[in-house]
């Protein structure tokens, strides 16, 4: 049965809600009543439920199988977390209720902050950023505020390795910085000598991911931190890969000044098809005074307060990033995850994530070409040299995985590796699940090498739709539904 759009099945005079009658009170809208239709049809509840349940089955999900997505960390989302986030003391509380009536909500923020600071070894945390990239923005704005405060507004150059996530340069630019790329060394890590040549007194700092996007730990991280600090800059660490080391290594010990934490990766709040995320940013002692509002403080009597207005005098924080206090719903889920795992479980999860990646790498290295030698962290990175001459591209290979019931791995990223395939199994996969995945990948690799190109170039064959034409979508964008009558009218004109 085909999946129609709600605009095709709904009716403008139908509704799936029952409301009490209106009273007919004289309006006080100042004459500003709406006269146009929204054009949005309604569905009765049975129709609506069926529409969304059917549509949902056209999605793949972590609850259905593995997402070996490097850098994106699709791990198990516990239902306890969902249940806790819906407790009325969290979900049914207004952000501007009197402080005396939200002590429990503030406790959640305070406890979460304690966990984040302890796990990272950092001095402060700004909870409010709404997502990872927003957390990056927070960290980079804090760096800018700190530089401004010490009268070094001229420091506007930010060093970014070429393997970085796209958000890093985009964020730096959004904060008014200019980006200077650092080369990668042949071992997949920052080229120290290139870094040294890029230092200077206009350097604001460096943005570095560790473990980096090649799935490797930057061995020289402490040296890099010292070099940046000596040069007068700050060290921003992209926390997207914190899940490889959480509970085992504290970024604060490595010289990090600011790092965002993706609660939706490391602490397993659900991705939800693309959000909402949450990106609290931890700060070193040097940057702590530059945290944005709001933040929670403890009063003398042990109760909690929320600082919502910028200080006037010292510190000169850069302000506010968002209305209200950030992603409370994600805080409760992340805190529930932390309490469930404990310090021991979080460490174990990191270790299992790293073990799983190394196991996949070890089992697949005979069939595919690892990008770098040696052990990896939580991600196994392959290049496409093993596909040379097969007529199969990384994209084709990825689409063929769909037919085998797997979401493709991350591909063509990081950019420093040709035709990159970045595999992150996470700690949520059992050995049996990994073995099945390895068997599938091995068999696909053999098929590619054996010349069965049609299996790849035409893939996916068994998904709800065949391969979609993305070029066509971008060339003449159709971004909303238009009634057929209107379309034919446009065509006729």
């Amino acid at each position, binding site marked *: 049965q085909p999946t129609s759009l709600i605009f095709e099945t709904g009716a403008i005079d139908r509704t*799936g809600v029952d409301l009490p009658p209106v009273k007919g009170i004289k309006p006080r809208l100042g004459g500003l009543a709406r006269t146009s239709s*929204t054009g949005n049809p309604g569905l009765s509840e049975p129709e609506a439920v069926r529409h969304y349940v059917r549509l949902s089955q056209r999605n793949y999900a972590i609850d259905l199988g593995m997402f070996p997505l490097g850098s994106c960390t699709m791990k198990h989302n516990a239902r306890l977390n969902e249940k806790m986030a819906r407790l009325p003391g969290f979900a*049914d*509380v207004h952000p*501007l209720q009197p402080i005396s009536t939200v002590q429990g909500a503030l406790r959640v923020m305070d406890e979460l902050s304690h966990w984040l600071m302890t796990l990272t070894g950092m001095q402060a945390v700004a909870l409010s950023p709404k997502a990872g990239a927003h957390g990056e923005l927070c960290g980079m704005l804090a760096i800018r505020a700190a530089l401004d405060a010490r009268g070094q507004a001229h420091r506007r150059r930010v060093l970014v390795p070429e393997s970085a996530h796209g958000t890093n340069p985009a964020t730096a630019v959004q904060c008014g910085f200019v980006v200077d790329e650092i080369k990668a060394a042949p071992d997949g890590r920052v080229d120290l000598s290139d870094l040294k040549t890029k230092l200077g007194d206009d350097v604001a700092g460096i943005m570095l991911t560790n473990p980096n996007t090649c799935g490797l730990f930057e061995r020289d991280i402490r040296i890099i931190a010292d070099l940046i600090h000596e040069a007068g800059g700050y060290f921003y660490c992209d926390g997207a890969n914190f899940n490889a080391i959480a509970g085992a290594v504290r970024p604060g010990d490595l010289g990090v000044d600011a790092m965002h934490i993706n609660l939706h990766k490391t602490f397993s709040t659900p991705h939800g098809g693309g959000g909402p995320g949450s990106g609290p940013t931890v700060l070193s002692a040097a940057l702590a005074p530059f945290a944005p509002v709001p933040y929670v403080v403890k009063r003398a009597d042990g109760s909690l307060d929320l600082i919502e207005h910028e200080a006037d005098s010292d510190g000169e924080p850069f302000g506010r990033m968002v209305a209200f206090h950030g992603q409370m719903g994600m805080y409760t889920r992340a805190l529930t995850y932390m309490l469930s795992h404990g310090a021991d479980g979080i*460490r174990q999860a990191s270790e299992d994530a790293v073990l799983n990646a190394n196991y996949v790498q070890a089992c697949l290295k005979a069939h595919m070409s690892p990008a770098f030698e040696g052990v990896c962290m939580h991600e196994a990175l392959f290049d496409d040299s093993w596909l040379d001459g097969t007529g199969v591209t990384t994209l084709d290979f990825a689409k063929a995985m769909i037919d085998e019931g797997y979401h493709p791995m991350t591909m063509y990223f990081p950019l420093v590796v040709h035709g990159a395939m970045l595999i992150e199994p996470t700690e949520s996969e059992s050995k049996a699940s990994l073995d099945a995945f390895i068997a599938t990948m091995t068999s696909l690799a053999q098929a590619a090498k054996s010349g069965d190109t049609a299996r790849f170039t035409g893939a996916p064959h068994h998904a709800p739709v065949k391969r979609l034409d993305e070029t066509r979508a971008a060339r003449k964008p159709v971004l*909303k539904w238009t009634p057929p009558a209107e379309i034919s009218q446009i065509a006729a004109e």
Partner: protein
Amino acid sequence: MRYLPLTPSDRAQMLARVGVNSIDALFQDVPAFARFDGPIAGLPLAQGELAVERHMQRLSHASVAAGSVPFFCGAGAYRHAVPASVDHLIQRSEFLTTYTPYQPEMAQGTVQTLFEFQTQVAGLLACDVANASMYDGSTACAEAVVMAARITKRRKVVFSGGLHPHYRRSARTLAKHSGLDIAGLPIAIDDEAAVLAAVDQDTACVVVQCPNVFGTLTDFTELARAVQAKGALLIAIFTEAVAFGLVKPPGDMGADIVAGEGQSIGNALNFGGPYVGLFATKDKYVRQMPGRLAGETVDADGNRGFVLTLSTREQHIRRDKATSNICTNSGLCALAFSIHMTLLGDKGLKHLAQLNHEAACETADAVSTLEGVELVSPSFFNEFAVRVPGSAAKVVDAMAAEGVLGGVPYSRLRQEPGFDDVLLIAATETTTADDIAALADTLKKVI
């Protein structure tokens, strides 16, 4: 640990396959000084579900849930009744635990719902085109400002005095660091149109709000024309999406960019987040729009399908040339919004809006007849401002002590001389006659 499938014997076998002796060997690149032997100190160890639930229940009980008392808070977040089916549907594994639909062939559920969402938002706001959601209303406002600067290649931003202070402050943060100049007009209960006077040849955009933070409704039609005549863009902000069931939508007034908060539809209060930013504009500006977009296309068999599109605007392709650093939308909240909209339909939304307005009218009548209380919003939808004797913050605290959450003092949003006595009061379809009576009685008692 219940979430970790590997058993000790699995781990031993796997280490052997990797060819190392211990897990520590896999962390060999971590400098020795930074490695811990065991769990990091200062944190509790793993706990079972029962223990965790007990702890979280205790924290939950330490706040006053809005639904448990007469409740009149708004100021950018509104308590509405969300049908039970909405929360049920968004919790389906296939929606909840799926990824950004970069592989559209196995994510048609997500991309199609985003396409439907975009259509609904465009219809609600009467705009040409809407994106697939932003973090929330305040960040949508901030992105609108930098987008306007990109389009006009001008550097000055004018904020009206009726804009929600959190929005103004958040937009200022981003704008300032994007090198823009900020012209914030004085706080005013009913002076949205005054922004026009501040527009000059450097002005990229003016930012107005309707209903504004004091509830006041203003028709921007003339303003939009005048602003556009000066080469600037009109950005219309809103914080209560339900309003547009009853109130003239910003698209019908000619706004260039419309941004605001969609929480009211489908989403809970959540102490401020996650919410869902709505963002819409004119067709001609679509390639300067931040955030994800879902578009229609066909598959290899020619059948209709949906994909994320125009991603060359985005950071994962354009890196430092991107229109925004955003790489997350508020997908699940957008889905909740869309499902609730689908259940409402045009008819239900208009009915709902009418109920909200009537509840606010009744509430306004009940409080403004009290000695010393003055209704100061000349017009309103479901929220209005009153002046009370003395400090509104103290009045609110006193009402809370009596078990009534009687609104938001404007000073909570911004400390501004002359506005200490302003109290913002919101009512919705969840407000009962008993609630209104309790508010009036308690307000009378504490002032």
